[in-house]
Protein backbone atom coordinates (compact mmCIF):
# COMPACT_ATOMS: atom_id res chain seq x y z
CA UNK A 1 0.00 0.00 0.00
CA UNK A 2 1.27 3.45 -0.86
CA UNK A 3 1.78 5.97 1.90
CA UNK A 4 -0.68 8.51 0.57
CA UNK A 5 -3.33 5.81 0.26
CA UNK A 6 -2.77 4.94 3.87
CA UNK A 7 -3.35 8.57 4.76
CA UNK A 8 -6.64 8.27 2.91
CA UNK A 9 -7.45 5.25 5.05
CA UNK A 10 -6.89 7.48 8.05
CA UNK A 11 -9.28 9.99 6.53
CA UNK A 12 -12.24 8.01 7.70
CA UNK A 13 -11.21 7.43 11.27
CA UNK A 14 -13.93 7.99 13.77
CA UNK A 15 -15.17 11.59 13.96
CA UNK A 16 -14.85 11.56 17.71
CA UNK A 17 -11.07 11.11 17.43
CA UNK A 18 -10.79 14.04 15.03
CA UNK A 19 -12.81 16.21 17.36
CA UNK A 20 -10.88 14.97 20.36
CA UNK A 21 -7.58 15.91 18.75
CA UNK A 22 -8.89 19.38 17.90
CA UNK A 23 -10.38 20.17 21.28
CA UNK A 24 -7.74 18.49 23.42
CA UNK A 25 -6.46 20.64 26.22
CA UNK A 26 -3.73 19.40 28.46
CA UNK A 27 -4.78 19.51 32.08
CA UNK A 28 -1.44 20.63 33.37
CA UNK A 29 -0.08 23.81 31.89
CA UNK A 30 3.41 22.52 31.47
CA UNK A 31 3.97 24.81 28.56
CA UNK A 32 3.67 27.79 30.84
CA UNK A 33 6.12 26.24 33.25
CA UNK A 34 8.54 25.69 30.44
CA UNK A 35 8.29 29.30 29.39
CA UNK A 36 9.00 30.38 32.94
CA UNK A 37 11.94 28.04 33.06
CA UNK A 38 13.25 29.43 29.81
CA UNK A 39 12.94 33.00 31.11
CA UNK A 40 14.61 32.01 34.35
CA UNK A 41 17.42 30.35 32.46
CA UNK A 42 17.92 33.42 30.30
CA UNK A 43 18.14 35.67 33.33
CA UNK A 44 20.67 33.39 34.91
CA UNK A 45 22.80 33.48 31.82
CA UNK A 46 22.64 37.26 31.67
CA UNK A 47 23.95 37.70 35.17
CA UNK A 48 26.56 35.05 34.55
CA UNK A 49 25.61 32.96 37.48
CA UNK A 50 23.23 30.46 35.96
CA UNK A 51 22.82 28.60 39.14
CA UNK A 52 19.72 27.36 40.80
CA UNK A 53 20.14 26.31 44.37
CA UNK A 54 17.82 23.63 45.60
CA UNK A 55 17.75 22.16 49.03
CA UNK A 56 16.99 18.48 48.81
CA UNK A 57 17.14 18.00 52.56
CA UNK A 58 18.75 19.48 55.59
CA UNK A 59 22.45 19.26 56.20
CA UNK A 60 24.18 15.97 55.72
CA UNK A 61 24.77 13.83 58.74
CA UNK A 62 27.77 14.93 60.73
CA UNK A 63 28.97 11.38 61.21
CA UNK A 64 29.20 9.43 57.96
CA UNK A 65 27.28 6.18 58.10
CA UNK A 66 29.22 2.98 58.22
CA UNK A 67 26.78 1.15 56.04
CA UNK A 68 23.92 2.28 53.95
CA UNK A 69 21.54 0.09 55.87
CA UNK A 70 22.52 1.57 59.20
CA UNK A 71 22.27 5.00 57.76
CA UNK A 72 18.76 4.47 56.59
CA UNK A 73 17.38 2.44 59.46
CA UNK A 74 15.43 5.46 60.56
CA UNK A 75 14.52 6.48 57.07
CA UNK A 76 11.18 8.10 56.77
CA UNK A 77 8.84 6.78 54.17
CA UNK A 78 6.81 9.35 52.37
CA UNK A 79 3.99 8.04 50.30
CA UNK A 80 3.13 11.21 48.49
CA UNK A 81 4.39 11.70 45.01
CA UNK A 82 7.12 14.14 45.84
CA UNK A 83 9.57 14.00 48.73
CA UNK A 84 9.13 16.02 51.86
CA UNK A 85 12.40 17.85 51.56
CA UNK A 86 12.15 19.67 54.85
CA UNK A 87 12.29 16.48 56.88
CA UNK A 88 15.71 15.62 58.29
CA UNK A 89 17.04 12.24 57.36
CA UNK A 90 15.99 10.35 54.34
CA UNK A 91 12.88 10.39 52.30
CA UNK A 92 11.60 7.84 49.91
CA UNK A 93 12.51 8.70 46.37
CA UNK A 94 9.74 9.16 43.92
CA UNK A 95 10.20 6.39 41.44
CA UNK A 96 9.82 8.13 38.15
CA UNK A 97 8.83 6.16 35.16
CA UNK A 98 11.97 5.65 33.18
CA UNK A 99 12.42 8.75 31.16
CA UNK A 100 8.89 10.04 31.21
CA UNK A 101 7.82 10.01 27.61
CA UNK A 102 11.12 11.32 26.40
CA UNK A 103 13.34 9.52 23.97
CA UNK A 104 13.27 6.54 26.24
CA UNK A 105 15.90 4.24 27.62
CA UNK A 106 16.06 2.33 24.38
CA UNK A 107 17.33 5.41 22.60
CA UNK A 108 19.44 7.11 25.26
CA UNK A 109 22.07 4.85 26.76
CA UNK A 110 23.51 5.82 30.12
CA UNK A 111 26.75 4.65 31.66
CA UNK A 112 28.70 5.95 34.62
CA UNK A 113 32.25 5.86 35.93
CA UNK A 114 33.28 7.15 39.33
CA UNK A 115 36.47 9.10 39.94
CA UNK A 116 36.81 10.21 43.52
CA UNK A 117 33.71 12.19 44.32
CA UNK A 118 33.00 12.87 40.66
CA UNK A 119 30.59 10.79 38.65
CA UNK A 120 31.15 10.88 34.91
CA UNK A 121 27.86 9.97 33.30
CA UNK A 122 27.96 9.30 29.60
CA UNK A 123 24.77 9.74 27.59
CA UNK A 124 24.72 8.21 24.13
CA UNK A 125 21.95 9.19 21.76
CA UNK A 126 21.32 6.21 19.51
CA UNK A 127 18.10 7.65 18.10
CA UNK A 128 17.89 9.47 14.80
CA UNK A 129 16.77 12.68 16.45
CA UNK A 130 18.43 15.34 18.59
CA UNK A 131 18.12 14.83 22.32
CA UNK A 132 17.74 17.68 24.80
CA UNK A 133 18.78 17.32 28.38
CA UNK A 134 19.36 19.35 31.51
CA UNK A 135 21.98 19.40 34.23
CA UNK A 136 19.79 18.67 37.22
CA UNK A 137 20.76 15.65 39.25
CA UNK A 138 20.37 14.07 42.63
CA UNK A 139 21.61 10.94 44.29
CA UNK A 140 19.50 8.04 45.49
CA UNK A 141 20.36 4.90 47.42
CA UNK A 142 18.70 1.50 47.39
CA UNK A 143 17.68 0.11 50.76
CA UNK A 144 15.74 -3.11 50.92
CA UNK A 145 14.25 -2.64 47.51
CA UNK A 146 13.29 1.00 47.99
CA UNK A 147 15.12 4.01 46.60
CA UNK A 148 15.72 6.91 48.97
CA UNK A 149 17.08 10.37 48.34
CA UNK A 150 20.53 10.84 49.81
CA UNK A 151 20.56 14.04 51.86
CA UNK A 152 22.99 16.66 50.73
CA UNK A 153 24.43 20.03 51.30
CA UNK A 154 23.25 22.74 48.98
CA UNK A 155 24.64 22.40 45.53
CA UNK A 156 24.19 24.27 42.30
CA UNK A 157 23.38 23.28 38.80
CA UNK A 158 23.13 25.27 35.61
CA UNK A 159 19.52 25.77 34.67
CA UNK A 160 20.24 25.25 31.02
CA UNK A 161 19.25 22.81 28.35
CA UNK A 162 21.75 21.15 26.08
CA UNK A 163 21.31 19.14 22.95
CA UNK A 164 23.26 16.40 21.25
CA UNK A 165 22.59 15.09 17.81
CA UNK A 166 21.72 11.62 16.60
CA UNK A 167 24.50 9.14 17.25
CA UNK A 168 26.42 11.57 19.45
CA UNK A 169 27.38 11.18 23.07
CA UNK A 170 28.28 13.50 25.89
CA UNK A 171 29.78 12.95 29.31
CA UNK A 172 28.45 15.02 32.19
CA UNK A 173 30.41 15.20 35.42
CA UNK A 174 28.30 15.31 38.56
CA UNK A 175 29.80 16.34 41.86
CA UNK A 176 28.89 13.87 44.59
CA UNK A 177 30.74 15.67 47.36
CA UNK A 178 27.59 17.45 48.60
CA UNK A 179 26.27 14.02 49.55
CA UNK A 180 29.15 13.39 51.91
CA UNK A 181 31.00 10.14 52.29
CA UNK A 182 28.89 7.43 50.79
CA UNK A 183 28.36 4.21 52.66
CA UNK A 184 28.70 0.93 50.78
CA UNK A 185 25.56 0.22 48.82
CA UNK A 186 23.74 0.53 45.54
CA UNK A 187 23.18 4.02 44.23
CA UNK A 188 21.79 5.77 41.24
CA UNK A 189 22.12 9.28 39.93
CA UNK A 190 18.86 10.68 38.66
CA UNK A 191 19.90 13.03 35.91
CA UNK A 192 19.38 14.34 32.41
CA UNK A 193 16.05 16.03 33.02
CA UNK A 194 15.15 19.66 32.32
CA UNK A 195 14.13 19.87 35.99
CA UNK A 196 14.55 17.58 38.96
CA UNK A 197 11.28 15.91 38.20
CA UNK A 198 11.04 15.50 34.46
CA UNK A 199 12.49 12.98 32.06
CA UNK A 200 14.82 11.52 34.61
CA UNK A 201 17.46 9.05 33.51
CA UNK A 202 19.20 6.84 36.04
CA UNK A 203 22.91 6.08 36.15
CA UNK A 204 23.50 3.15 38.48
CA UNK A 205 26.64 2.40 40.47
CA UNK A 206 27.70 0.42 43.50
CA UNK A 207 30.08 1.14 46.31
CA UNK A 208 31.54 -2.09 47.66
CA UNK A 209 32.43 -2.83 51.24
CA UNK A 210 36.03 -2.24 50.21
CA UNK A 211 35.14 1.27 49.14
CA UNK A 212 35.48 0.51 45.45
CA UNK A 213 33.03 2.16 43.08
CA UNK A 214 31.63 0.00 40.30
CA UNK A 215 29.91 1.91 37.57
CA UNK A 216 27.73 0.56 34.82
CA UNK A 217 28.13 0.19 31.11
CA UNK A 218 25.45 1.47 28.70
CA UNK A 219 23.44 -1.71 29.01
CA UNK A 220 23.13 -1.26 32.74
CA UNK A 221 25.54 -4.07 33.62
CA UNK A 222 28.44 -3.43 36.00
CA UNK A 223 31.68 -2.32 34.45
CA UNK A 224 33.69 -5.28 33.23
CA UNK A 225 30.67 -7.55 33.00
CA UNK A 226 31.33 -10.12 30.30
CA UNK A 227 28.06 -11.97 30.26
CA UNK A 228 29.50 -14.84 32.29
CA UNK A 229 27.92 -15.74 35.59
Amino acid at each position, binding site marked *: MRQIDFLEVLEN*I*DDKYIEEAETYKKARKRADV*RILLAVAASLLVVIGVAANFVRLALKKKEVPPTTARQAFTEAETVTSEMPATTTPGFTEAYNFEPVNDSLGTQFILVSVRLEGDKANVKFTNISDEPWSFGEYYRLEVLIEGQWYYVPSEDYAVHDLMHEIGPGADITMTYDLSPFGELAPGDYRIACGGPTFNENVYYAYFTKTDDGVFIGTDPTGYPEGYTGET
Partner: protein
Amino acid sequence: MEDENIIRLYWDRDEAAIEETSRKYGRYCFAIANNILFNREDSEECVNDTYVKVWESIPPKRPSIFSAFIGKITRNISLNRYKLNNAEKRGGNEMTVVLDEVREIVSGEPDPEEEAIRADLTAAVNDFLATLSVEKRVMFVRRYWYADDVKSIASRMGTSENNISVSVRRIRNNLRDYLIGRGFEL
Protein backbone atom coordinates in the same frame (compact mmCIF):
# COMPACT_ATOMS: atom_id res chain seq x y z
CA MET B 1 -23.31 30.05 16.01
CA GLU B 2 -23.89 26.54 17.22
CA ASP B 3 -23.15 23.77 14.76
CA GLU B 4 -26.72 22.59 14.91
CA ASN B 5 -27.91 25.99 13.70
CA ILE B 6 -25.36 26.10 10.92
CA ILE B 7 -26.52 22.70 9.72
CA ARG B 8 -30.10 23.94 9.83
CA LEU B 9 -29.12 26.79 7.50
CA TYR B 10 -27.75 24.26 5.04
CA TRP B 11 -30.96 22.29 5.21
CA ASP B 12 -32.89 25.50 4.63
CA ARG B 13 -30.63 26.17 1.62
CA ASP B 14 -29.72 29.48 3.18
CA GLU B 15 -26.40 30.74 1.80
CA ALA B 16 -25.68 32.28 5.17
CA ALA B 17 -24.66 28.74 6.06
CA ILE B 18 -21.43 29.16 4.13
CA GLU B 19 -20.73 32.50 5.74
CA GLU B 20 -21.26 31.06 9.20
CA THR B 21 -19.17 28.03 8.34
CA SER B 22 -16.38 30.23 7.10
CA ARG B 23 -16.57 32.39 10.22
CA LYS B 24 -16.40 29.44 12.58
CA TYR B 25 -14.30 26.92 10.70
CA GLY B 26 -12.41 28.92 8.10
CA ARG B 27 -9.14 28.96 10.02
CA TYR B 28 -9.57 25.35 11.05
CA CYS B 29 -10.02 24.23 7.45
CA PHE B 30 -7.20 26.44 6.24
CA ALA B 31 -4.85 24.95 8.81
CA ILE B 32 -5.70 21.43 7.65
CA ALA B 33 -5.22 22.34 4.01
CA ASN B 34 -2.06 24.33 4.57
CA ASN B 35 -0.45 21.55 6.61
CA ILE B 36 -0.87 19.33 3.57
CA LEU B 37 -0.19 21.79 0.79
CA PHE B 38 2.04 24.39 2.40
CA ASN B 39 0.74 26.88 -0.10
CA ARG B 40 -1.56 29.71 0.84
CA GLU B 41 -3.27 30.05 -2.51
CA ASP B 42 -3.88 26.34 -2.95
CA SER B 43 -5.06 26.06 0.64
CA GLU B 44 -7.55 28.89 0.24
CA GLU B 45 -8.89 27.24 -2.89
CA CYS B 46 -9.29 23.96 -1.05
CA VAL B 47 -11.16 25.69 1.73
CA ASN B 48 -13.50 27.30 -0.78
CA ASP B 49 -13.97 23.93 -2.47
CA THR B 50 -14.78 22.56 0.95
CA TYR B 51 -17.65 24.98 1.37
CA VAL B 52 -19.04 23.96 -2.01
CA LYS B 53 -18.75 20.29 -1.10
CA VAL B 54 -20.45 20.82 2.23
CA TRP B 55 -23.21 22.74 0.48
CA GLU B 56 -23.69 19.81 -1.87
CA SER B 57 -23.60 17.25 0.93
CA ILE B 58 -26.02 18.83 3.37
CA PRO B 59 -28.72 17.82 2.80
CA PRO B 60 -29.11 14.88 2.65
CA LYS B 61 -26.37 14.39 5.24
CA ARG B 62 -26.77 15.58 8.78
CA PRO B 63 -23.33 15.24 10.42
CA SER B 64 -23.26 14.58 14.11
CA ILE B 65 -19.86 16.21 14.55
CA PHE B 66 -19.75 19.07 12.10
CA SER B 67 -16.11 19.99 12.71
CA ALA B 68 -14.95 16.47 11.87
CA PHE B 69 -17.25 16.33 8.88
CA ILE B 70 -15.97 19.54 7.37
CA GLY B 71 -12.40 18.70 8.34
CA LYS B 72 -12.58 15.40 6.51
CA ILE B 73 -13.79 17.13 3.39
CA THR B 74 -11.00 19.68 3.56
CA ARG B 75 -8.45 16.97 4.13
CA ASN B 76 -9.75 14.89 1.24
CA ILE B 77 -9.72 17.82 -1.17
CA SER B 78 -6.27 18.86 0.00
CA LEU B 79 -4.82 15.38 -0.35
CA ASN B 80 -6.16 15.19 -3.88
CA ARG B 81 -4.63 18.56 -4.64
CA TYR B 82 -1.39 17.38 -3.08
CA LYS B 83 -1.34 14.32 -5.31
CA LEU B 84 -2.01 16.50 -8.32
CA ASN B 85 0.71 18.96 -7.39
CA ASN B 86 3.22 16.25 -6.59
CA ALA B 87 2.52 13.78 -9.35
CA GLU B 88 6.08 14.06 -10.59
CA LYS B 89 7.95 15.88 -7.91
CA ARG B 90 8.47 15.66 -4.20
CA GLY B 91 7.44 18.61 -2.11
CA GLY B 92 9.44 20.00 0.75
CA ASN B 93 6.62 20.52 3.17
CA GLU B 94 5.38 18.82 6.32
CA MET B 95 3.28 16.46 4.26
CA THR B 96 6.40 15.01 2.69
CA VAL B 97 7.77 14.27 6.13
CA VAL B 98 4.48 12.72 7.21
CA LEU B 99 4.49 10.49 4.16
CA ASP B 100 8.03 9.40 4.87
CA GLU B 101 7.00 8.44 8.38
CA VAL B 102 3.96 6.54 7.16
CA ARG B 103 6.31 4.45 5.02
CA GLU B 104 7.21 2.69 8.26
CA ILE B 105 3.66 1.40 8.41
CA VAL B 106 3.03 0.47 4.79
CA SER B 107 5.32 -0.94 2.12
CA GLY B 108 4.74 1.70 -0.52
CA GLU B 109 3.70 -0.84 -3.12
CA PRO B 110 0.34 -0.36 -4.83
CA ASP B 111 -2.23 -2.99 -3.98
CA PRO B 112 -4.85 -3.87 -6.59
CA GLU B 113 -7.28 -4.96 -3.91
CA GLU B 114 -6.75 -1.81 -1.93
CA GLU B 115 -10.22 -0.47 -2.39
CA ALA B 116 -11.72 -3.66 -1.05
CA ILE B 117 -9.65 -3.67 2.11
CA ARG B 118 -9.70 0.06 2.75
CA ALA B 119 -12.85 -0.01 4.82
CA ASP B 120 -11.56 -2.94 6.87
CA LEU B 121 -8.29 -1.10 7.40
CA THR B 122 -10.07 2.00 8.60
CA ALA B 123 -12.07 -0.09 11.04
CA ALA B 124 -8.90 -1.73 12.29
CA VAL B 125 -7.21 1.64 12.71
CA ASN B 126 -10.21 2.85 14.68
CA ASP B 127 -9.95 -0.23 16.89
CA PHE B 128 -6.26 0.45 17.39
CA LEU B 129 -6.88 4.09 18.26
CA ALA B 130 -9.38 2.98 20.87
CA THR B 131 -6.60 1.10 22.65
CA LEU B 132 -4.45 4.23 23.04
CA SER B 133 -4.51 6.70 25.86
CA VAL B 134 -6.11 10.01 25.00
CA GLU B 135 -2.73 11.75 24.88
CA LYS B 136 -1.18 9.20 22.56
CA ARG B 137 -4.24 9.19 20.36
CA VAL B 138 -4.25 12.97 20.09
CA MET B 139 -0.56 12.92 19.16
CA PHE B 140 -1.19 10.37 16.44
CA VAL B 141 -4.26 12.08 15.01
CA ARG B 142 -2.63 15.49 15.09
CA ARG B 143 0.36 14.10 13.24
CA TYR B 144 -1.29 11.86 10.65
CA TRP B 145 -4.73 13.27 10.26
CA TYR B 146 -4.06 16.96 10.69
CA ALA B 147 -0.46 16.64 9.42
CA ASP B 148 0.68 19.00 12.17
CA ASP B 149 4.41 19.43 12.53
CA VAL B 150 6.07 18.03 15.63
CA LYS B 151 6.71 21.46 17.09
CA SER B 152 3.04 22.40 16.91
CA ILE B 153 1.97 19.16 18.54
CA ALA B 154 4.53 19.59 21.31
CA SER B 155 3.22 23.08 21.96
CA ARG B 156 -0.37 21.90 21.99
CA MET B 157 0.40 18.98 24.27
CA GLY B 158 2.67 20.95 26.57
CA THR B 159 5.58 18.60 26.16
CA SER B 160 8.86 18.32 24.33
CA GLU B 161 9.38 17.73 20.64
CA ASN B 162 11.49 14.73 21.59
CA ASN B 163 8.55 13.30 23.43
CA ILE B 164 6.25 13.73 20.46
CA SER B 165 8.74 12.31 17.97
CA VAL B 166 9.42 9.24 20.03
CA SER B 167 5.80 8.69 20.94
CA VAL B 168 4.49 8.85 17.39
CA ARG B 169 7.29 6.59 16.24
CA ARG B 170 6.27 4.01 18.82
CA ILE B 171 2.63 4.37 17.90
CA ARG B 172 3.50 3.87 14.23
CA ASN B 173 5.40 0.70 15.04
CA ASN B 174 2.63 -0.53 17.29
CA LEU B 175 0.03 0.24 14.63
CA ARG B 176 1.99 -1.68 12.04
CA ASP B 177 2.30 -4.67 14.36
CA TYR B 178 -1.38 -4.40 15.22
CA LEU B 179 -2.49 -4.37 11.60
CA ILE B 180 -0.19 -7.22 10.63
CA GLY B 181 -1.56 -9.12 13.59
CA ARG B 182 -5.03 -8.53 12.23
CA GLY B 183 -3.99 -10.16 8.97
CA PHE B 184 -3.36 -7.11 6.80
CA GLU B 185 -0.55 -7.25 4.28
CA LEU B 186 1.03 -3.84 4.33
